[in-house]
């Protein structure tokens, strides 16, 4: 029977394997490296991320390869997202170092957890099977819960971690429940096979839609969109800023990949149903996110609410792919690519603005109230100019990337139809 054993093709998963190996190396390094040579840890992490990015870049050939019994897919989307995730996390690690050192949080656990979270994201991005997706999601989420609580002496951070954990576990439960419904209806967990089964009409539509509701709810939790957004401001506010920077950037890309894999790749036939759900989520997120952001006095909370509305915009693009049950190949691709563009633009803006907050926090003092930023122009005009650019970009003022991202999304949404357009116009009352 030995000849039936097939070694899976490992090459498509090379970036993930590299990260995993480096993470194991870091566990050992943590044991032997002394207090003075702490920089080695961060250097190893940088090498891991840069190496993984390099591998992803060099193996990016636009071909779709399935491996591990069709559980893992390596296509252009996954390569691109992995590249962005690697580079984002790389920037996060470099940005965070001085902040962590100043607060004595520069422990081996931080680097390890960041790498495992990155690994989780990459697995999610490449998942073509519900189990792989869930595995990646949990690896990411568990690492994030621990990261939020990394400052063990901070009551606020611990509370945030607890809140994040409880709500996150609930969301995972919902997602899993939805997945099991879909499994019940289609008899398979493989995303491509699910799409086939629904297409051929073999599946019970009622159970599918029931499962879809749970899947969308779970996704909404992970993306942090209204009405599943309650954890976002608290966690962003409670976590040490370096961790907030991490949570607010790369995981959004992974969540975007998850939404795309589940809804577009797997449940595309149900587009009419999830389109309506996403529309409600998007409109509420944009409205609530913006209105609540205005009232905040803490910049981390403000950016959190602004992030909620940005995720709403991304969903707006994601739901615009299908017009009244009709698929127009150009329009659909345009909608998904604008959603992807929006996600990447948001990650860049979020990296920049939380990076500024991080940079301006000195040892022993957190720059997080809006009042802390008064007079910044006098102290450091360059930082003030950068902050200004980030804020204008978030508000979608032209010449900055935020505008072009919003423009692409609006274009897709208006193309999708008049009812959607009316909703867009009413929800456009936004500021930040």
């Amino acid at each position: 029977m030995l000849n039936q054993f097939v070694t899976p093709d490992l090459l498509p998963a090379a970036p993930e394997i590299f990260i995993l190996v480096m993470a194991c190396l870091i566990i050992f390094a943590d044991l032997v490296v002394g207090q003075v040579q702490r920089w080695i840890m961060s250097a190893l992490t940088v090498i891991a991320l840069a190496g993984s990015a390099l591998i992803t870049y060099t193996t990016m050939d636009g071909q779709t390869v399935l491996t591990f019994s069709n559980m893992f897919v390596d296509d252009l989307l996954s390569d691109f997202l992995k590249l962005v995730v690697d580079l984002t996390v790389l920037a996060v690690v470099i940005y965070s170092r001085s902040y962590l050192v100043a607060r004595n949080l520069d422990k081996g656990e931080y680097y390890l957890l960041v790498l495992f979270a990155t690994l989780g994201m990459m697995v999610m991005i490449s998942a073509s099977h519900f189990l792989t997706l869930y595995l990646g999601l949990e690896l990411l989420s568990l690492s994030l819960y621990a990261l939020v609580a990394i400052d063990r002496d901070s009551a606020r951070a611990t509370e945030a971690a607890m809140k994040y954990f409880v709500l996150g576990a609930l969301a995972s439960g919902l997602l899993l429940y939805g997945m099991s419904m879909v499994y019940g209806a289609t008899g398979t967990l493989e995303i491509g096979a699910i799409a086939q089964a629904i297409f051929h009409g073999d599946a019970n539509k009622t159970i599918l839609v029931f499962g879809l509701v749970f899947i969308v709810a779970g996704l909404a939790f992970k993306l942090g969109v209204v009405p599943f957004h309650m954890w976002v401001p608290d966690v962003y506010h409670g976590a040490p800023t370096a961790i907030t920077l991490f949570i607010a950037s790369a995981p959004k890309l992974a969540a975007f990949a998850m939404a795309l894999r589940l809804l577009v790749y797997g449940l595309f036939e149900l587009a009419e149903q999830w389109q309506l759900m996403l529309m409600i989520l998007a409109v509420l997120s944009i409205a609530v996110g913006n209105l609540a952001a205005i009232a905040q006095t803490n910049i981390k909370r403000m950016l959190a609410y602004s992030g909620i509305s940005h995720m709403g915009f991304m969903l707006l693009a994601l739901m615009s792919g299908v017009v009244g049950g009709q698929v127009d190949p150009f329009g659909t691709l345009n909608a998904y690519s604008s959603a992807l563009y929006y996600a990447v633009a948001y990650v860049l803006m979020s990296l920049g603005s939380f990076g500024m907050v991080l940079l301006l926090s000195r040892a022993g003092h957190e720059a997080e109230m809006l009042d802390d930023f008064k007079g910044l122009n006098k102290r450091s005009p360059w930082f003030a100019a950068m902050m200004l650019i980030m804020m204008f970009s978030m508000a979608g003022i032209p010449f900055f990337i935020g505008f072009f991202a919003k423009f692409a999304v609006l274009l897709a949404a208006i193309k999708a139809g008049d009812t959607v357009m009316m909703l867009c116009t009413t929800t456009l009352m936004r500021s930040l």
Partner: protein
Amino acid sequence: MSAYLLSLAIWVPIIGSLFVFAVGPERRSAARLLALVVALAGFVVTLPLLLNFDPTFVGFQFVEQAPWIQRFNVQYFLGVDGISVLFIALNSLITILVVLAGWQVIEDKASQYMGAFLVMSGLMNGIFAALDAMLFYVFFEASLIPMYIIIGVWGGPNRVYAAFKFFLYTLLGSLLMLVSLIWLFLEAGGSFNLIDWYNLKIGIQPQILLFLAFLVAFAVKVPMWPVHTWLPDAHVEAPTGGSVVLAAIMLKLGAYGFLRFSLPIAPDASHQLAPLMIGLSLIAVVYIGFVALVQADMKKLIAYSSISHMGFVTLGFFIFNQIGVEGALVQMISHGFVSAAMFLCVGVMYDRAHSRMIADYGGVVNTMPKFAALFVFFAMANCGLPATSGFVGEFMVVSLSLPLHRRHACFRG
């Protein structure tokens, strides 16, 4: 050379401003001198536009066209007609005045102040020159940024509130415009070219929606009653230079938008909704005129009188008569000079008396007789006294509107 004149008018001040920023806030005199040189250069490059402009030519002149964002077919498409060329020159001239007005007064971060005005000058030239709707929108929105900063940083005690109000009002309006621009883009088969849009045949229903969306965007900018409330706040809190640019150029953007977008793209809706527009304009002229009468604050008075003057402009557009439109244009240019002069005069007084109250200005004629004479002269021009430029435009608009509507458009006090 003449092919790139418009680009020069846009980019000379913007690139020059980078050098002014680079001088740094410490070296005040170097910064202001450099800013003056850049502003003068910006004005000089617009002169050939005026001199070589062919008034007999129908269509756009000095056209430049290059692809910008190919995916959405956005072009870097510039050109001017007889309307916009005047505003480009006016804008560049006003920028010189603003730099000079801030010469002594601005002690705090002078290089950034001057640089912000230069950037704004370039962006506003871009608005007047853009023939691609997306390019127009980009410049239109981007011009908010320097103004927001100017009010927010160098403004009066309540500057943050005023800057936010200004920003939110105008942003809200322009978002509706963005949506209609995208709708038109799809309708025109993927083109943001304004000249293509003029030839579009649009049904009356969408035309009315488009007109209303543009109305919100431009009415905020003009500003028309009842969305005018940001203007007095912005004027009162803005530094002198900010008020000058706001009154002289920024208010004209809204009226220019009506001419460039609403009227040619939605002509039927414009005719149908003309009574609404005329009504709003008359309210602005009469009611805001009365509001101006009771102001004790000089800057507020000028701000309200600006709103009422812009009422004449929109009135002139929507009586659909060539002389009416010409009168509105004369009124816009005249108001650009006169209100700028008024704000500069108030700036002079404020720097000496540190008060904007009219009551505190008594006896100025004893100490500054020549200044007082000029001040009165500009005030008279603002009133529209015959033989001043203010009279010409108002006379043209009012004389045309009287037989049409038999309503009194009374002169403001």
